[in-house]
């Protein structure tokens, strides 16, 4: 059950789509491999897409919150995208607000934040 989560490079960003239910070990491994990939690639921004995730419990929320803080220590900004309505409802009821975390409705809007607001290259732009 060793399921590695693919981490893809998009210009100056890394893109992660979590596609299956996270168990504790995979979540912790993901934390380490994301930081390692940031280090290797010199990426400035990360998008973690949670569209396919139908449950986030306090542990997974902590792992996500922690990896965002760790990335921040390395000078890298993270956007969480695609949090489902059911997940948003249960997280808040559970008492988890992920307050200092940047989020966007979907991947497109997440990449727009990276490139548009933060100036981190996420797609090829035509020279003016």
């Amino acid at each position, binding site marked *: *059950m060793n399921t590695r989560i693919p981490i893809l490079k998009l210009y100056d960003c890394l893109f992660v789509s979590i596609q299956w*239910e996270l*168990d*504790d*070990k995979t979540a912790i491994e993901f934390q380490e491999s994301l930081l390692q990939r940031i280090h290797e690639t010199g990426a400035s921004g990360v998008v973690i897409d949670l569209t396919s995730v*139908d*449950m*986030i*419990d*306090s*542990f997974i929320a*902590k792992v996500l919150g922690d990896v965002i803080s760790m990335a921040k220590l390395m000078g890298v900004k993270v956007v969480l995208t695609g949090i*489902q*309505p*059911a*997940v948003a*409802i*249960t997280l808040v*009821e*559970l*008492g*988890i607000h992920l307050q200092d975390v940047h989020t966007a409705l979907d991947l497109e809007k997440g990449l727009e934040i990276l490139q548009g607001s933060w100036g981190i290259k996420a797609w090829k732009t035509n020279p003016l």
Partner: protein
Amino acid sequence: MENESSVKILSEWDIVAARQLGRNIAKELGFGTVDQARITTAISELARNIYLYAGKGEIHFEPVNNFEKKGLKVIAVDHGPGIQDIRRAMEDGFSTSNGLGAGLPGVRRLMDEFDLISSLGEGTTIRVVKWLRERKFG
């Protein structure tokens, strides 16, 4: 008490097994996606508490079918050390495990009913119920 099933919690993997079985049962009973997420999350918290504090235990699932309402009862049983201060354990933000398994107050908010029995040295039983919101007329 038809259709009772359970998952033994002995390792981290069993937390995933418990919530997957719980989600399947909730789906079969006709719960919507939000309630499925609530139930699954509550099970995950209860299973993690067992794993963290007692080492081992069990999660039982029991569809409830009264005259008036249908629902899913989830019972988390362990024979661990028990909860020393139940009142504090039910306070938001209180955890003896460094922020993991944060959620008894959260579990209570996610579910409709919540009962906790714990005795020191003997273990803890937590019983939660989620009722199916069903419109009988129209």
